[in-house]
C-alpha cells in the first residue's frame, strides 16, 4: 500500500482557481455580462450624469465597487448553484479535495475576474470621461485592501445565500434583487446624503456602501470631497471593521448552511 501524502489544501485551492478561471473565460456570456457590464453602465449613465470632473471620479469609484459586488455576490452565488446543479459539487465531494480548497478556488476566480472588470471600467472612465487615476501609493494601497476585503466578504455572503436557491433559474432572483436594491441604498446611483435617514441606515448595514465609500476615497480629486459622504468623512477604519465583520459572519453562515446537493440528506 502507498502511503504518499495527499496534496495540500492551498495548492489544491490554487489549482481549482486556475481551472475555475479557465472555465469562466471560456464562457462568452461571462465575458460580456460579468466583465463588461459595469463599464457599459458607466458609459451609458455617465453620459447623462457626468457633467463635471468630480462627478466622473465619484461615479467611476462607485461603479468599481458595484462591479466587484456583482462578481463576488451575484456571480459567485450563481456559480455555486450551477456547480450544485451540474454535478461539480457532487463529484468533488467524492474526491479527497478539502472543501476549503473549493472555496479558495472560488475566491481566486472572483478576485481575478473582478480585477479584469475594474481594469476595463477604469479604461472606459479615463478614455471617455477623463477620469484621473489615483497617483499616490497610499491611495492604491487603500484600493488594494478595500478590494480584497470586499471580494472576500461578499464572496462568502454570495456562497451562503446560494443555499437558498434551488436552481440557477431562481438563483438569479434570490441574488440579483438584494444586489440591485443595495445599489440604490449604498450611494452607487444616488448619493447617500440624498436618501432619507432610514434608508441610509439600512444601506449602511451592508458591505456595498462601505466598499464604494472606500473607492470614492481613493478616486476623489482631494479629501475635501469627503463632506459629501453621509458621515462627512471617509471613515476608513470603519470600512475595515464592517467588511471584517461581514467576513466573519459570512464564514459562519457558509459553514452552517453550505449544501453539497439539492436532495435532502
Amino acid at each position, binding site marked *: 500500500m*502507498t502511503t*504518499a*501524502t*495527499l*496534496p495540500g489544501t492551498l495548492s*489544491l485551492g490554487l*489549482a481549482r482557481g486556475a*481551472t475555475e478561471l*479557465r*472555465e469562466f473565460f*471560456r*464562457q462568452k456570456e461571462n465575458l460580456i455580462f460579468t466583465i463588461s457590464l459595469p463599464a457599459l453602465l458607466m458609459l451609458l449613465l455617465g453620459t447623462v450624469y457626468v457633467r463635471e470632473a468630480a462627478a466622473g471620479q465619484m461615479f467611476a469609484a462607485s461603479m468599481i465597487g458595484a462591479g466587484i459586488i456583482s462578481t463576488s455576490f451575484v456571480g459567485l452565488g450563481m456559480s455555486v448553484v450551477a*456547480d450544485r446543479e*451540474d*454535478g*461539480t459539487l*457532487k*463529484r468533488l*465531494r*467524492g*474526491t*479527497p*479535495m*478539502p472543501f476549503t480548497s473549493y472555496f479558495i478556488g472560488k475566491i481566486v476566480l472572483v478576485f481575478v475576474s473582478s480585477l479584469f472588470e475594474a481594469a476595463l471600467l477604469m479604461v472606459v472612465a479615463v478614455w471617455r470621461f477623463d477620469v484621473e487615476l489615483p497617483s499616490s501609493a497610499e491611495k492604491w494601497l487603500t484600493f488594494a485592501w478595500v478590494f480584497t476585503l470586499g471580494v472576500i466578504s461578499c464572496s462568502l455572503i454570495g456562497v451562503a445565500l446560494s443555499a437558498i436557491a434551488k436552481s440557477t433559474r431562481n438563483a438569479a432572483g434570490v441574488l440579483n434583487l438584494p444586489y440591485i436594491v443595495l445599489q440604490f441604498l449604498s450611494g452607487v446611483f444616488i448619493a447617500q446624503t440624498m436618501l432619507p435617514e432610514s434608508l441610509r441606515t439600512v444601506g449602511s448595514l451592508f458591505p456595498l456602501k462601505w466598499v464604494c465609500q472606500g473607492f470614492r476615497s481613493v478616486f476623489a480629486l482631494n479629501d475635501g470631497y469627503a463632506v459629501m459622504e453621509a458621515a462627512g468623512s471617509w471613515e476608513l477604519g470603519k470600512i475595515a471593521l464592517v467588511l471584517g465583520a461581514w467576513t466573519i459572519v459570512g464564514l459562519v453562515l457558509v459553514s452552517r448552511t453550505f449544501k*453539497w*446537493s439539492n436532495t*435532502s*440528506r
Partner: protein
Amino acid sequence: MNAIRVRGLKKAYKDHQAVAGVDLDVARGEVFAVLGPNGAGKTTSVEILEGHRDRDAGEVSVLGVDPAKGGREWRSKLGIVLQSATDAATLTVREAVHHYARYYANPRDPEEVIDLVGLTEKAKSRGSTLSGGQRRRLDVALGIIGRPELMFLDEPTTGFDPEARRQFWSLIKRLAAEGTTILLTTHYLDEAEALADRVAVLAGGRIVAEGAPQTLGGRAHADATVRWLSDRGYQEIRTSEPTKTIAELSRHGELAELTVTRPSLEDVYLELIA
C-alpha cells in the same frame, strides 16, 4: 476484511421508507451488482455507502471506515462514477482528467487513463461536445484516476447504444481484473450477468434475493422447458430431466426447432420483484 459490510441499514424520507433493513457483504476484489426497479432504494443505499447521505439506522463499514465519518484518506481510496453529471463542460477531456489527478496522492497517469477509457481521439474535445457514451467514459476516467480500491457505478450504462455498452463492459472487466472492488447498480439483467460475481435484488428497500447470477432464485435447479415443432404446431414440456425427455421424444425421428431453456435471469428477477 470485506470491502463493504452493511447490517440493518435503514433510511426514510418523510413517510417513505426508502431502505428498510439491508444487510450486505462485498468481498475485496469482487464485482457486486445491485438490481432493482426504480424506487427500490438502490441509489439511496449507494449514496449512504459513498458518504453522500446520512442514514437513520444500521452499521456500515466501507473499507473499514464508517462513511459518515470518512475523511480525505478514505475518500482517496474510492472511485465514484456519477450518474448524470454535466460538469466540466468547457474543459477538454485532457484538462479535466489532468485536473482531477491532482487531488490524489498517487494517481494513475492521466494520458493512460484517457487511453484506457477510449477517449484518446477526443482528448482535445470539450465536455459539452461529447456524446452520451463518451461523456460517461469521461465520468469513469475521473472515477478511476485516483487508483481506487473500491468503485461505485450507479446505473452506468443507462442510455447507451448496444456497442457502447459492450465497450463499457470490457472496461469494467479490465478494472475488475486489476483487483478493483466494484459495486454497481443496474436495471439491465444482462449487464449484471455479464459483469457481476454476485448480485442482490433490492425491492421495496429490502434485499429479496442474493447470489451468483447463474443460481439466483434457484435458477440452476429450476425445471427446464423442452420445446419443438411438430405437425400440430409448437409443443412444450416442462421437466426436471430434459436429457431423458429428449431421448424419448427423438425415438420417433428428428425434432424440428428443438430448444431447451431454463428461466432467464429476467424471469427470476420479475418473479422476485412482483
